[in-house]
């Protein structure tokens, strides 16, 4: 069995990046627990994964804003022996102008992108520690690297999640587990479809391929596609007194 032919919990499995990753894992014969809110869509993806070679694929409800949905997923995953892995693709990004008009929306964004997944992972972590193996893939965003006028609420939630992942890596590493933080640039998904100013857009499958390579090589933080590391390196180093006047 290869590194990835194990149990994988995928949170936010209706997203196109998650779908692409689930398919790749299916081909390696993984046992998949696809989690999200649209149960019809998840059931379709589960069938698809089975047809493509998954040892097992099931759909379970996960709502980042409803922590009662978390426990059953963890309970289901521990029924299976061997490594339990988890990939987190959840998050929500209302337009910044909409949030500015209704600041109460911040609650949901932070819940979806940070609090929900962090709570879930903290529930799962003891199981991973007990088994002494397993990988967490946390999908953040380059938006979390620096607050920008266009999406700083979403960015701040992703930054919070990235910091959480960094701490979780610190914790799980000493127990034999691993955490990969993934920062995708622009990806060709429903979220970016038709948004102006997109460039060097990556396909969801290319991102999934990068993620699984990072899992196999135990990378800590990856940007995907890789060149976003350099784009964000530049953006992070622009002095604040200049940056505050920019709108990028």
């Amino acid at each position, binding site marked *: 069995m290869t590194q990835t032919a194990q149990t994988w919990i995928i949170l936010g499995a209706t997203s*196109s990046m998650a779908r692409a990753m689930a398919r790749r894992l299916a081909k390696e014969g993984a046992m998949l627990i696809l989690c999200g809110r649209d149960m019809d869509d998840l059931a379709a*993806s589960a*069938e698809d994964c089975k047809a493509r070679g998954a040892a097992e694929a099931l759909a379970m409800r996960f709502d980042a804003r409803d922590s009662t949905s978390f426990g059953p997923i963890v309970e289901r995953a521990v029924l299976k022996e061997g490594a339990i892995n988890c990939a987190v693709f959840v998050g929500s990004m209302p337009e910044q102008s909409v949030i500015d008009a209704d600041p109460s929306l911040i609650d949901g964004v932070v819940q979806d992108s940070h609090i929900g997944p962090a709570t879930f992972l903290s529930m799962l972590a003891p199981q991973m520690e007990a088994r002494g193996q397993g990988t967490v893939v946390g999908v953040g965003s380059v938006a979390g690297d620096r607050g920008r006028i266009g999406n700083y609420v979403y960015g701040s939630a992703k930054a919070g999640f990235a910091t959480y992942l960094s701490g979780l890596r610190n914790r799980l590493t000493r127990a034999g587990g691993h955490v990969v933080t993934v920062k995708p640039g622009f990806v060709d998904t429903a979220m970016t479809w038709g948004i102006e100013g997109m460039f060097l857009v990556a396909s969801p499958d290319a991102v999934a391929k990068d993620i699984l390579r990072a899992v196999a090589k135990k990378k800590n933080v990856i940007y995907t596609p890789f060149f976003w590391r350099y784009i964000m390196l530049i953006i992070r180093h622009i002095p604040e007194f200049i940056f505050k006047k920019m709108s990028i």
Partner: protein
Amino acid sequence: MTWNKLTYAGWGRARSATGQVARPERQSSLLREIASFAAPAFGMRRSYGDVALNDGGRAYDMTRLDRVLSFDAETGVVEVEAGMPIGDLGRAFAAKGWIPPVMPGTGFATVGGCIANDVHGKNHHVKGSFGQHVTEITLIHGAEIKTITPKSGAIWKATVGGLGQTGVIAKAKLQLMPCKGDMMVLTERRIDSLDEFLAAFDESKTDYTVGWIDATATGAHLGRGILEEGEITSGINNSKDGAKAVPFNAPGWALSAPVVRVFNELYFRRVPAKGRTSVKPITEPFFPLDAIHNWNRLYGKHGFNQFQCVVPPERVDVLRLMLEKIGASHLASPLAVLKKMGDGRGGYMSFPMEGYTLAVDFPNKDGSQELIKELTDMTLDAGGRIYFAKDGVAEATQIKGMYPEQDKWQRAVEKADPQGALVTDLVRRLNLRESAKES
């Protein structure tokens, strides 16, 4: 955002369209969008001309709806979303002992497109057309969702091969056929003339039979080529997916007459004079060009057109005249195919009919469109027809009477889409839905 203004083209890239495109990722969002705006759908746009385009209007890109929805291992019936590429389906199931009974020349074509164009494969003489193996289709038009089967009558026959004019195909059930494995025993041999080709087709006993033809050959060599005959066999496919890509548009001379002549000569001699037999993963003989992504760029930025016709078996004389005309034009590319077809067809507007089908690619340059139009006239005179999945050149008057059941199709389409919300560029150009009213 739901709608994105895009400029998109058919595979030949000689025709393009600009318009708002939505790309739903879930069945629920597809239903919601179509309920608020009925528009035609397209998949991977592997049709060559403009059958998948809607210039100035809206369209649905189905490529993100590409999943297997259910599979019955007892019966071999699989339900898939319409945007699933047929090659993916073949790869997912061949190892389990099942294969789509009909696969077109590219695995990138989606199931929805295979139905709407009622495509055929190298085994048409044995298995008929794609639509004949479809058992159920979910059609969406506005707020209406219809599930149709071959027993549904006119709407079924107007949907299979119906160019998407009865509704957006959201899902379909296909009857797969059992297969021994995912390898193919392929025999290739040289054929020296058209007569020899026709005789070889008559004698061929294999399930998969197709001829590559040297469209630049003239005189004594007219109609020479390579006959490929294949049978699926058991075996283990160890090859890795190593697709190459054409990174940019090739310059104009890349497929100029002298280059093509030399290429074709070498391609012909590649197969030893006494022929050869080899065992290959099925994807190779099924989808020979899929290994080179974006091969359409070889034709440069102006793109290319493909002419494909089928003529009745007794009109071999026209086939010969066509090959003479093509050879003399110095416009042909290396991509030319000859095949004997059976009479299997699934719908009113399906292309296949008993006879010989000839397909030739032409770079989109001076003279090629005129040549294609001449070939189209010859096809009509011979009682044959051209293939809408390939056409980007014909004029409305040229195809009148080619499809004897067009009036039945028109009546069913009129009922299913009275507002004309699903009209595409090809349907407009060839006036496909209008001509009944005029007569």
